[in-house]
């Protein structure tokens, strides 16, 4: 049966390998040819995304896992280099490729470019891998590569932020490793996630199942992240170079949500159920805390980080409004929220970081909520409105299923979280609009350039079209969600 999943079209392999090969080529070209290296890197990264988009056109939503490639790797342990996509991994992979391309374009130095390409490879490997061991390798490699980017080309307290990020993420990876290896053993040493998805491995003793599940949950918890393991994200947003930020959002945060759905919900649906109310409560708590914290931030990037945490908490709470007859709908809507938040959050953070990083003191003023220039205001109005619409729509549609399932606590929590998101976005816009406005030039400080403004709006439109297509074309996600929901017994 698995042979139909892996027709070996080599489509996914090429998409995966392109950024990695480009990194090696960039290194081989040497530091003196930065222009050509950037062309190679950006081209390879974009081509990888296009290949995945092409795969999406060939994707049959009703079929499940498909378009896979499989190569022998470690046959004695039942491990192979297996890549495939389904309704969950394909949207995440496309988003990761798009955000990764943004990150690569932002890399202006030779080694930074190479590491950004390698990080994109690791992110794609995370979402496309259908083997436990390869997934683990990607889960360990991604924090390392991002640590290099953070520490090597970050600013401010980059060393502190990078170290905290690395330690937290590797701790999660360590616990995930134990859980995954336990699953591998109880699944008769089969490394295929596709096979394990079908057989739903389980230990003879309940507490072992719970112990393994807890390992997966903690790994997802720190990656998403939820309170109180969120502080790495805020420090990372502040310090990370623009090349790393999209990958942090589209790789690490999205990867945490992906691990929660793929591993925890996919492999242990019945053992997850007792934990769902607690996870939902944690999600709501995280959302409310992060929203309040975002109001007190002095820089847009930290504010965005807390907003991102709040949306993640809301989405996780949405995931947990199961079981019930609306299980499939709720899962679908939560996935849409995660994807929308990942896309907009990554884009917003990248834009903010690019502008505040490179253009000098005027754009640094954009980073402070209390002071903005005329063009900056126009820029942020558009960004803020777009973010609120794109994020709020999927978030709002989480509420009706919770109401239908008579989950009053969840309804209240979600409502508060969504209200908070709305207020936060509105407050940010209000401060941008009514804050003391600088003249075009004060003490030699220039306004945001027209080119930057055009670039921002252009990026917004270019990103919005595929993003909305992704959301509107959510048939794949809907099918996946309904298939996943079958594992949850009322």
């Amino acid at each position, binding site marked *: 049966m698995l042979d139909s999943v892996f027709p070996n079209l080599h489509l996914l392999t090429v998409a995966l390998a392109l950024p990695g090969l480009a990194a090696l080529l960039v290194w081989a070209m040497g530091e003196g040819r930065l222009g050509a290296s950037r062309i190679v890197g950006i081209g390879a990264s974009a081509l990888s995304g296009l290949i995945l988009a092409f795969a999406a056109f060939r994707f049959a939503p009703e079929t499940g896992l498909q378009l896979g490639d499989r190569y022998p790797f470690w046959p004695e342990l039942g491990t192979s280099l297996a890549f495939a996509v389904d309704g969950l991994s394909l949207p995440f992979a496309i988003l990761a490729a798009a955000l990764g391309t943004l990150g690569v374009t932002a890399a202006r130095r030779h080694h930074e470019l190479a590491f950004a390409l390698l990080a994109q490879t690791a992110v794609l490997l995370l979402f496309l891998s259908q083997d436990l061991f390869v997934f683990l390798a990607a889960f360990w490699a991604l924090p390392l590569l991002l640590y290099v980017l953070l520490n090597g080309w970050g600013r401010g307290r980059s060393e502190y932020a990078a170290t905290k990020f690395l330690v937290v993420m*590797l701790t999660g990876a360590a616990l995930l490793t134990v859980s995954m290896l336990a699953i591998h053993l109880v699944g008769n040493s089969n490394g295929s996630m596709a096979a394990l998805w079908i057989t739903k491995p389980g230990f003879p003793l309940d507490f072992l199942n719970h112990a393994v599940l807890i390992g997966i949950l903690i790994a997802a918890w720190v990656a998403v992240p939820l309170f109180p393991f969120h502080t790495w994200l805020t420090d990372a947003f502040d310090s990370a170079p623009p090349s790393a930020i999209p990958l942090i959002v589209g790789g690490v945060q999205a990867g945490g949500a992906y691990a929660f759905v793929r591993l925890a919900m996919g492999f242990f649906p019945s053992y997850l159920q007792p934990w769902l109310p607690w996870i939902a409560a944690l999600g709501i708590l995280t959302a409310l805390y992060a929203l309040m914290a975002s109001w007190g931030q002095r820089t847009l990037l930290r504010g965005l980080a807390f907003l991102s945490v709040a949306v993640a908490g809301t989405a996780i709470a949405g995931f947990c409004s199961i079981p019930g007859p609306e299980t499939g709908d709720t899962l679908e809507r939560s996935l849409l929220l995660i994807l929308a938040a990942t896309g907009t959050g990554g884009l917003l953070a990248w834009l903010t970081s690019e502008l505040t990083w490179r253009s000098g003191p005027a754009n640094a003023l954009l980073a402070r909520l209390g002071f903005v220039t005329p063009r900056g205001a126009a820029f942020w109005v558009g960004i803020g409105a777009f973010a609120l619409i794109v994020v709020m729509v999927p978030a709002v549609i989480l509420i009706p299923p919770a109401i239908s399932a008579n989950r009053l606590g969840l309804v209240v929590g979600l409502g508060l979280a969504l209200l908070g998101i709305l207020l936060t976005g509105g407050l940010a816009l209000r401060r941008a609009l009514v804050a003391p406005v600088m003249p075009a030039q004060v003490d030699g400080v220039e306004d945001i350039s027209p080119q930057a403004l055009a670039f921002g709006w252009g990026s917004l439109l270019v990103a919005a079209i595929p993003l909305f297509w992704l959301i509107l074309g959510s048939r794949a996600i809907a099918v996946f969600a309904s298939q996943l929901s079958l594992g949850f017994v009322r």
Partner: protein
Amino acid sequence: MDNAIVLLPELLLVLLGLAVLIAARFAPRLIAPLSTYGLVAAFGVLLGQALIGAVGGPAFANAVQIGPLAGFFRGAILLAVAAASALAWGEAHPSPHLRFGLLIASALGALGMAGAADWVILYLSATVMGTALLGLVALGPSRARQETMLKLFLVQAVAGAVMLFGLTWLYGLGGSTSYVALGSALQTPDSLLTYALLLVLGGLAFTVAAVPFHAWLPDATEGSAPSTGAWLLGGASLAAVAGVTRVLMMVFSTNTGLWAPYVTGLAVLSLLAGSLLALAQSELRRMLAFASVGTTGFGLLSLVAASHPASSQDGLMALLMTVLTAGIATLGLFAGFGAAGARTLTDLTGLHRRQPGLALALSACAIALAALPLAGAFWARISLVRAILVYVSQSMLFGALALAVLVMLTTVVMAYTALRVPKAIYLPTTDAPIPSDQAPPSPQLAVLWLCALASVFFFVAPSLLWSLVGAATRGF
């Protein structure tokens, strides 16, 4: 004839030692290449024996038993001593014949420990290895070398005495010094056997530098020449692990419940202390020494996993993968630090500009020490956790699940420790001008690159590594 064939590498080493002493009189400049290439040739002979199937068999009235496991350790020891000899080639010292001669003698003792099937051979081999190490430490450049040597001598004396005391008890209980005979005789655990085991285990714990018997290792590593430190951590430690493995798996194979808890305790202490103390070091060789203590912990946990019949092969394979990949990383790092002339982390600043190739290879070896992706050691760590989980599932000791978590958490600590090396190389924290330096010696570069490439190769081809260690676990 059979004895000669089985011990051909050892005979070659004896001849090599004599040749080195003769060369000291007539051609001192040939000592280093003679020693290095001779050791490589000895490994070649061992490899040739393995390929034609002539490596196994008993010798000296079954006092030595060379099987696949012994063959694996002997091969690794020969490669390690060849690497140490290559590192010594790049060092300047007034009495090269003593340095290389003692290295060869120490290797001879190490080979004896790896193939011993009798207590007498084990003890004699350990004494030869240890005494030669004393001489090597005494020849070190450190001003504190006499203090280090004395400390090492006292530790060895105490460890030897404790172990001998235990051995005599075992002889009294079992009526033989042969591993196989003792294994058959000592079936029933009792208090006398327990005390004897603890004494022997205590003595062996000194040799493998398991906590709390580890204090001598960092001082000995720091106080001796880099080549001696490389041999100590990358080769002599292999011999010690081989000795412990053979004793526990051959003599006490039916009393695993007796020794497993104590070995678990040693392993946990070594893991915690080794990883945390390595983090606190800025002197590179001390950092490697404490990392080696941590590796001892990983190795001992593998032995615990191997103590159950159902998980025996998984545990042994995890042990071999761990010590092999850790040895490659350690030797590579010693070679790299020596080539860079670095004693502390700050000495590595700006290395990527002075010697970009050296910096890259050194970073690859640091990643191997950290057991992270792109290094074969990553799969070794995975196999260790897998072996522990198999042990847990077979022994029904669910508290041992915590061991798996501990292994991975200490891996995170070791990863951060080891990543300080590439960080110091590529991300300088000072604006001090980067001094220019001379090209590093070729032998050190060769060892470094071989280790780096081997590490990456085993990451992309884990099946080969798995097959190699799998073949080694088919017999002692």
